[in-house]
């Protein structure tokens, strides 16, 4: 079993924005600073539990929508607007996971020691993250996805994760920029095919 999960296309988390993701129901906030670096944190503010993916990016920090606490790239709290003079103790921090951007896809590992060797090292351009209403296990079988959870299919990188039981997000990236539309069309055909297969399986 791999340590890395493909959670989103890089292009779907633009600079200075945050986005929600889920992995087997676990809520994760993805965000990208002005420097282009992607972060993946537990989607829960340490203050009162607001979802950090609703937050906004300011001065290289992710600010919580609720009371505006700001967290730096290292996940420690840098600023509490209600107490502007306070030097925030380093013990207050968001819970960070490892995040790595490869082949147009954002990969997240809950294991700090995960090896980067498991990830693709070729370049690719994100084409489509598409919802498939079928469990990941059956998508894996139908697409013959290997253990690592991703593979090259000619000029297309295919990867998948399960946001919640029974639903799969299929992420497809293209080896060339020009081919992205073709690959996006292929993503739709693949989805329709997989959902039709899934409906045939008796519950």
């Amino acid at each position, binding site marked *: 079993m791999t340590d890395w999960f493909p959670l*989103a*296309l890089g292009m*779907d988390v*633009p600079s200075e*924005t945050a*986005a*929600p*993701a*889920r992995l087997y129901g676990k809520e994760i906030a993805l965000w990208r600073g002005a420097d282009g670096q992607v972060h993946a944190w537990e989607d829960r503010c340490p203050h009162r539990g607001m979802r950090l993916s*609703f937050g*906004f990016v300011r001065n290289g920090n992710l600010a919580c*929508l609720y009371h505006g606490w700001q967290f730096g790239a290292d996940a420690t709290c840098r600023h509490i607007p209600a107490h502007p003079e306070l030097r925030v103790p380093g013990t207050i921090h968001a819970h960070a996971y490892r995040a790595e951007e490869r082949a147009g896809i954002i990969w997240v590992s809950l294991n700090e020691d995960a090896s980067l060797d498991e990830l693709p090292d070729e370049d690719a351009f994100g*084409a*489509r*993250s*598409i*919802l498939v*209403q079928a469990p990941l296990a059956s998508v894996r079988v139908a697409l013959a996805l290997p253990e690592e959870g991703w593979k090259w299919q000619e000029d297309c990188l295919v990867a998948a994760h399960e*946001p*919640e039981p029974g*639903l799969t*997000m299929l992420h497809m990236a293209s080896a060339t920029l020009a081919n*992205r*539309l073709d690959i*996006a069309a292929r993503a*739709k055909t693949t989805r329709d095919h997989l959902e039709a297969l899934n409906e045939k399986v008796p519950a």
Partner: protein
Amino acid sequence: MRLRDWALDDRCYAVRLGASLMGVHLPTITDAAALETGPVLEIDGGCLRGPADILQRLTSLPEVSRDWHLGIGEERRDAWAESALEQLSHLRRAALLAALPTDGVPPSVFRLMTEIEDRLSDDRLCDRPWLSGRHPGVADILLFPIVALSQDLEVPLDLYPAIRNFIRQFKALPGFMTMPGVPECH
């Protein structure tokens, strides 16, 4: 000119939102019937119904920038967006009025969101930033309440990245306004 309006109705919101984005001063009068019929525009001594027709009428007012005018062949997108809004409005009323909470997202909502996501996603890859082309138009205004209020039906937005992108860029438009259920900033 004035709008017969119900503040919590999604179709009425589309009209108020459009007027605000286009810089049209649109007085409103609260009319509970609009919850059923949708918005009604009193104009030129008559009544205009249907959010798409009302918004198109607003685009032709002299104070509105020509950027809001329809491109050639765009009527189909307006009609598509209007029927999508009708569907959501119907589903949302059913969900909000339900005596018991329903279990999970209904399949019809998944179908609607998938159709919208497919379209926005293809447009984006073709460098078409808005449903209406280079500039937002009536179809975009009709689409926004659907995707923003889909939260009332508990649609998880992590499943729809192109819709998320649309919501973000729409909220950044000058004149954007909210209604209950649409968070101010995101």
